[in-house]
């Protein structure tokens, strides 16, 4: 018997202009024990669909039409009480953001116990016993201590495990996992997804996995539903959808997956050394962020530093760009020893060394329009002029930089808040290019973007490098992206570079155990590479 049938579901949000549908006539079925992945980019309606099934739409959301059938119950016709009874017991949710989904003032064990209190007849001792069991199932070792801990004492991955424990506490038949790993490091993501897999294998629970990551979907699902603009544009068995996508949008998504992007030819000639780092160490209080690292970057190449959060890769980038001073060691950029430079002393170098931040919007002054943002580096190196003369003097170069970043000239008059994430990142790239620098440090430039947009930005970065002979220092946590764009790569962990070398060598023949772990954790690696 089909576990979940969604038929012609249409969901809308009430806004100032009345009810606007955001999910249009979506239909799918999930059998017991199956994993259905709903894949799509932000705003595609995948989360809204998942929440409609649970009856957890926000106050201004409403199911306009269609049916949701769970076993033999019509969920759309159920009363609030009936839904409550179903939620947690038969259908449960693993929410998106483990950071805000736990009550900060109660021990996590008690929060898992709530589910048992609501849906089982167990007495106090038995409930506690069961929570300990659940914690063991989700991979905690010291379960009694974990029970008493508060959310702030746990890492993101651990909190997500607590939420998974709560989701499976009452042995539900269906779990809706809404981006369960989107904020987590790759290795942690793998552990969490492995855990969900394992639970499914053990108890035959069906899972609806809402995700933006086609790689995760390819690895973990039996069925894939691809959503775009609120419509389910393609659905089918995973291997079929990934292997022979029919809808153009699915094809675009599959081709945008970084591990599918053409790798650059090996052994491109590289020039002289432009950045040389020797024994670099940075200590914050008692914490060593960067620990005796050494590497060099040659002219015209892309050198990637890859690592998980807290590995020291961003601190290294900040030292290279003179935003933070090193504790010890030597950093030479274009022949200048920057460790000895004050902020003022670094200024002449900034013509040649620019940075693109992870979050472009916050790196724009809220009062500035696009023209002002891109013009800023020019102003820094131009003699002071009257405002009306200045704008005219810089106009050509600003427009040229926008064009290089593939933005139309009329964007200059717009405000960053009117732009999409990809467009904002292009503005940030235009700002970095306006001085025609030699070295560009890219600090996670695409990790906040949807895959198809990220693929466009990567292509843009590659084209710019070829046209202008730029040297990139590319900071990323995403190995698939790093493989697509870099010539050489350094793997960082706990402030140390554990391995570095040409990208082919590191990826095909990793020497360090941590690199192996990272490579293992790349989602969608086997299927996507195999499908080529």
């Amino acid at each position: 018997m089909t576990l979940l049938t969604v038929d012609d579901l249409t969901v809308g949000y009430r806004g100032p202009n009345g009810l606007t549908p955001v999910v249009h006539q979506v239909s799918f079925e999930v059998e017991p024990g199956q994993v259905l992945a709903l894949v799509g980019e932000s705003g595609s309606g995948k989360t809204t669909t998942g929440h409609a099934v649970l009856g957890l739409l926000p106050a201004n959301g409403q199911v306009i039409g269609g049916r949701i059938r769970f076993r033999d119950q019509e969920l759309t016709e159920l009363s609030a009480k009936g839904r409550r009874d179903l939620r947690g017991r038969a259908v449960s949710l693993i929410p998106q953001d483990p950071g805000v989904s736990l009550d900060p003032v109660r021990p996590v064990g008690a929060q898992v116990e709530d589910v048992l209190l609501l849906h089982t007849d167990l007495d106090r001792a038995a409930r506690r016993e069961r929570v300990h069991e659940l914690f063991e199932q989700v991979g905690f070792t010291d379960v009694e201590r974990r029970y008493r801990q508060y959310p702030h004492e746990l890492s993101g991955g651990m909190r997500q495990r607590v939420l998974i424990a709560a989701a499976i506490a009452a042995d539900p038949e269906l779990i809706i996992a809404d981006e369960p790993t989107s904020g987590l490091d790759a290795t942690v993501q793998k552990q969490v997804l492995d855990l969900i897999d394992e639970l499914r294998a053990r108890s035959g629970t069906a899972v609806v996995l809402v995700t933006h990551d086609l790689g995760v979907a390819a690895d973990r699902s039996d069925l894939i539903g691809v959503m775009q603009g609120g419509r389910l544009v393609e659905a089918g068995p995973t291997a079929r959808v990934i292997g022979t996508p029919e809808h153009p949008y699915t094809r675009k998504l599959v081709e945008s997956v970084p591990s599918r992007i053409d790798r650059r030819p090996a052994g491109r000639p590289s020039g002289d050394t432009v950045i040389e780092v020797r024994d670099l160490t940075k200590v914050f209080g008692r914490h060593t962020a960067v620990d005796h690292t050494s590497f060099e970057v040659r002219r015209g190449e892309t050198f990637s530093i890859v690592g998980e959060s807290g590995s020291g890769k961003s601190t290294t980038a900040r030292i290279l760009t003179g935003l933070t001073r090193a504790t010890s060691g030597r950093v030479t950029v274009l022949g200048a020893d920057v460790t000895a430079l004050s902020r003022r002393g670094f200024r002449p170098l900034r013509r040649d060394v620019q940075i693109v931040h992870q979050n472009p919007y916050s790196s724009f002054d809220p009062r500035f329009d696009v023209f002002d943002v891109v013009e800023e580096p020019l102003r820094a190196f131009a003699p002071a002029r009257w405002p009306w003369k200045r704008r005219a003097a810089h106009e050509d170069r600003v427009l040229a930089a926008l064009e290089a970043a593939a933005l139309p000239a009329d964007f200059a008059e717009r405000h960053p808040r009117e732009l999409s994430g990809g467009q904002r990142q292009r503005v940030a790239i235009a700002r970095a290019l306006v001085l025609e620098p030699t070295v560009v440090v890219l600090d996670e430039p695409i990790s906040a973007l949807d895959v198809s947009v990220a693929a466009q930005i990567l292509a843009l970065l590659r084209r710019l490098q070829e046209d202008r002979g730029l040297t990139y220092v590319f900071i990323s946590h995403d190995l698939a992206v790093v493989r697509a764009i870099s010539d050489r790569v350094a793997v960082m962990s706990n402030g140390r570079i554990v391995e570095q070398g040409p990208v082919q060598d590191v990826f095909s023949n990793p020497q360090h155990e941590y690199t192996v772990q990272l490579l293992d954790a790349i989602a969608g690696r086997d299927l996507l590479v195999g499908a080529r």
Partner: protein
Amino acid sequence: MTLIAEAEAETRTAPPRRSRRPLGDAGVYLAALVVAVALLWAVAPNLFTSADPLAVQPALRFRPPSADHWFGTDQLGRDLYTRVVYGARASLTGAGVAVALAVLVGAILGTVAGWFGGVTDSVIGRAIDVVLSIPGFLFAITIVVLLGFGVLQAAVAVGLTSSATFARLIRSEVLKARSSNYVEAAITSGASTFAILRRHVLPNSFTATLALITVQFGIAIIWIASLSFLGLGAQPPQPEWGLLVSDGRNYIASRGWLTLWPGLTVVAVVLATNHLSHHLGRRRTP
């Protein structure tokens, strides 16, 4: 689970749209009108009255309010309405000078403390704390006594006293901007410290400062009037709101209008500036 679910649902609901309150808006317009009229009094008093504020007419002593003398006349037969209109200049200029001085000193101290941090910040920060720990009006009196009596001296005293409040606010705004990504981006763009302060830090501190300016303007009016009331500010026969109240005090039992009208004027203008300030502050926080 329901707990988790509810928390989740809550983060997803759109922020409630601010309801439009027609009465609130009307209050803002009224306040703006009051302030505008007071400012016009100060700039061009002869538009509002043709009489001379200093003309003594013994025959017209102590006339109660009437069609000829809207606010009545004082013990020397001078028209009180005219004196209140002309008094706006001394009171408002005093308040303006005080606030301008406070903003200037506060901006310099606050920016230096916030931007450079470290020892500089500690020294300036402790100095601000010391000034704020002394009752403000007492501090202003002390300064006036050192500087001598007069509206300008009173204004300088009030300005120096309230500069500590501005310094503290601007320091926190500068700290906020300094740690922001856009200032970091400006640094990596190659902008000099001075350019960053001028282009990014100070303009982005302005909205918060503007709300405080309006509050402090109201406070400065009261303080300068109070100093004049005590005889430390404006000197007779110059018309000034505080001094008018002080003059009328001798006749408060029998000729209440002499204190009532100047007093009400001060109250109206101060309430109006406070209301405007509240409105600006509310608009700033989304």
